């Protein structure tokens, strides 16, 4: 009985202390660290790092892959024809070099002859032919099948109009691959670095069938690392591939990827040295900056914007769309909700995308004011006049997550204050929102878009008449014609001139109102000296990480 008494007292005491101290502590703690990266030295195992990837990669079969986390893992274990360097510039991968025909349509790749799959098979041109054919074969049901439309007859084959032998890629020999494109595509090599173009060893695929890529021992590897263990929903262990041609230059022996979903838990794990890299949310960025701890930022290529349904009786009016877009104080939005270095979107295509000589967004320049209440009001009055109404009723569809609800409330407030326009906000589950969007059953929706490849077209082609992503119902003959010109133009300068014009049309017609370009943040433990790559097209690449000595 005494023991039980003691136990219960202890229990009650510890609970009370926990609860009470929580009230007083929160604001004052975490202020006294020294600001160097040594404050959090990280994990202790030698030549190994542990990073948080937050969630389970749902599927590791590159042909049907869609999830960012899956691509992150894949990047380390399967190498494509080409890969990207730290500036997202193309560099040789399985292909040691290549030639391009003058019309920009035929690429001939010479492959390395010293690469092996983890099942002992050599890595050959046939592995690419197999994977790319699978990508376009309807029975494989790849979401990203349209990526293969870049190949000659890719779309026709996918739609069952021609046979596989008509596809624009063939193995000239084991180590030579010839690729013919449908149109000259200046960003073709960039897209080749994308995970869906990864090679797949046919023998291995046949062995595992549809279970390929569902476990560590149900797939094969040719990249700098191999997956040696995959405890689902828990952790993935990658170990250096000793047969990789560049193995001597790779310092890490092991990468452990853990899946801590809760952001507070992840930060705690980082601080106690269980993890060497975690992503931060806006609140945590502020917290770590207060500690003077180095926080790394990168633009992830996402643009967040309002989509205006052009079928709506009010939103069909261009001036109203402009009024709404200009009336939102975008910097205030970032400061109060996103809380990091995200940028105000002054055009649609996000900063990481390459232009002719510089980043495309710089070449395009600012096409809308970050915020101009007076101008917005002017447009609003003009719109009311043109529509011949006194008031307008609209609703805004948003996700039901905490952050989305804040987004909705902010937009609602801004429109009320700056225009006197009252809108209704409708939060709903993600999938419901997507369905409403694809059915064009909305007035305004808060949406986001991320790039698939490094070219402005990855944003701008969605406004083509009838495009599956054109939820707003935008249709503009001049725009469609320009898009067509862009896809056939071989002169780079002219092509980018067209792309610029596309961007200008969007910002003038404003079927969408850009709000911000997202940045993301992460911290590294003292153990990591350099070599972490996180960009819009490689999030995350740890292959060349160097450790502190």
């Amino acid at each position, binding site marked *: 009985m005494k023991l039980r008494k003691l136990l219960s007292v202890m229990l009650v005491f510890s609970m009370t202390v926990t609860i009470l101290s929580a009230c007083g502590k929160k604001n004052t703690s975490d202020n006294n660290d020294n600001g160097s990266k040594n404050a959090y030295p990280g994990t202790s195992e030698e030549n190994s790092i542990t990073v948080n990837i937050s969630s389970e990669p749902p599927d590791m079969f590159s042909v049907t892959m869609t999830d960012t986390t899956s691509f992150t893992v894949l990047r380390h274990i399967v190498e494509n024809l080409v890969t990207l360097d730290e500036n997202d510039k193309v560099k040789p991968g399985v292909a040691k070099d290549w030639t391009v025909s003058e019309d920009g349509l035929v690429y001939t790749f010479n492959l390395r002859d010293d690469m092996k799959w983890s099942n002992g098979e050599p890595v050959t041109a046939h592995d690419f032919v197999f994977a790319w054919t699978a990508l376009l074969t309807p029975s494989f049901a790849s979401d990203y099948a349209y990526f293969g439309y870049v190949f000659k007859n890719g779309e026709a084959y996918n739609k069952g109009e021609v046979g596989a032998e008509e596809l624009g890629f063939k193995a000239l020999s084991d180590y030579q691959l010839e690729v013919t494109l449908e149109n000259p595509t200046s960003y073709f090599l960039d897209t080749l670095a994308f995970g869906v173009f990864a090679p797949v060893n046919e023998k291995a695929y046949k062995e595992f069938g549809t279970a390929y890529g569902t476990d560590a021992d149900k797939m094969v590897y040719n990249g700098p690392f191999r997956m040696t263990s995959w405890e689902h929903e828990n952790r993935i262990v990658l170990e250096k591939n000793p047969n990789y041609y560049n193995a001597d230059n790779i310092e890490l022996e092991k990468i452990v990827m853990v899946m801590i979903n809760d952001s507070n838990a992840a930060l705690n794990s980082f601080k106690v040295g269980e993890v060497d890299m975690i992503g931060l949310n806006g609140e945590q960025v502020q917290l770590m900056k207060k500690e003077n701890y180095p926080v790394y930022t990168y633009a992830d290529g996402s643009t967040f914007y309002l989509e205006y349904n052009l079928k709506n009786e009010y939103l069909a009016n261009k001036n109203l769309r402009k009024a709404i877009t200009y009336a939102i104080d975008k910097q205030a939005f970032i400061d109060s909700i996103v809380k990091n270095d995200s940028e105000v979107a002054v055009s649609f295509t996000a900063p990481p995308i390459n232009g002719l000589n510089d980043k495309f967004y710089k070449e395009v320049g600012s096409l809308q004011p970050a915020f101009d209440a007076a101008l917005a009001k002017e447009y609003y009055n003009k719109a009311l006049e043109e529509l011949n109404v006194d008031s307008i009723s609209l609703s805004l569809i948003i996700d039901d997550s905490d952050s989305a609800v804040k987004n909705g409330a902010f937009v609602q407030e801004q429109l009320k204050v700056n225009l006197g326009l009252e809108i209704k906000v409708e939060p709903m*589950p993600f999938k419901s929102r997507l369905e409403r969007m694809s059915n064009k059953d909305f007035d305004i929706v808060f949406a986001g878009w991320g790039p698939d490849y490094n070219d402005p077209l990855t944003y701008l082609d969605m406004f083509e008449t009838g495009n599956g992503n054109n939820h707003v119902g935008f249709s503009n003959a001049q725009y469609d014609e320009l898009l067509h010109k862009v896809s056939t133009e071989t002169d780079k300068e002219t092509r980018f001139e067209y792309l610029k014009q596309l961007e200008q049309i969007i910002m003038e017609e404003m079927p969408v109102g850009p709000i911000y370009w997202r940045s993301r943040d992460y911290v590294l433990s003292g153990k990591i000296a350099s070599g972490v790559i996180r960009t819009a097209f490689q999030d995350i690449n740890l292959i060349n990480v160097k450790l502190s000595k």
Partner: protein
Amino acid sequence: MIKYVVKRILYSLLTLLVLVTLTFFMMRLLPGDPFIGQKAIPETTLKSLNEKYGLDKPMWQQLLIYMGNVFRGDLGISIHYNRPVNDIIKQAFPYSFDLGMRALIFATVMGILLGIIAAVKRGTHWDTISMLLAIIGVSVPGFIIGSLLQYFFALKLTQWTGITFFPNTGWDGFAAKILPSFALSLSSLATVSRLMRTSMMDVLSQDYIKTAKSKGLSQKTIIWKHAVRNAIMPVITVLGPISAALLTGAFVVENIFAIPGMGKFFVYSIQTQDYTMISGTTLFYGAFLIIANLLVDLAYGFIDPRVKLSEGKE
């Protein structure tokens, strides 16, 4: 007794059948579909996805096929993970069961003890403290308890002392299991202790307790031999649903402590509209709940011989 059990099992199967059917139709009423995503997918892809998962067939046919598979013990392939639902449950359930079992045992033992103490020492600070604990346990949500435990015992304690007493996340080793089990047990502990207190006070005011007292029996004997045995019945009743809830996966606690259990599948399968996963997890939970309740009913008979399981016939 055997007849009763067989009857109960038959009823259970019927319940599960209804459960599967209802779930099947309800999840189809959700707006959206498993394949709709941020970006439009080619029509040929959509078509073969629907074929692959049999979603191109008429509803009733899909249901019959699913039922047939379930009877053969096959819950299908998860649309989101492309792995058999059976495998996913087999992999995740042991974690949830382990966590839940620890929480359940702790909650039951501590809850009963606290309840007894509170009832016997009614009006004293013991009573106040145990009921305060009960109120905290019931009213403070799991994610707050979990986060606080993590913050103080995994983070701050480690920072202050330089020694890791409790790992922040994971399920490796005994130390890692303490905080999550405690966090998960708290609300059940509160339920059990409150029930036990009420029931105990009720029993303690009964005549036969007074008789026992007047016979000169010691307080210890009275409480443990006479009172507890009778007072514990309502607690046993709630243990069925409590065990089902604790053992089949606790989303919040598993999420905070990054334990690869079942919890997230209940939530994410609905968010991703992974039809096979929704049906699979619902069926699994349903079956578990039914079995737990059956065991509780059987336990009545052992604890209180007056309860006759076949009394329906009388």
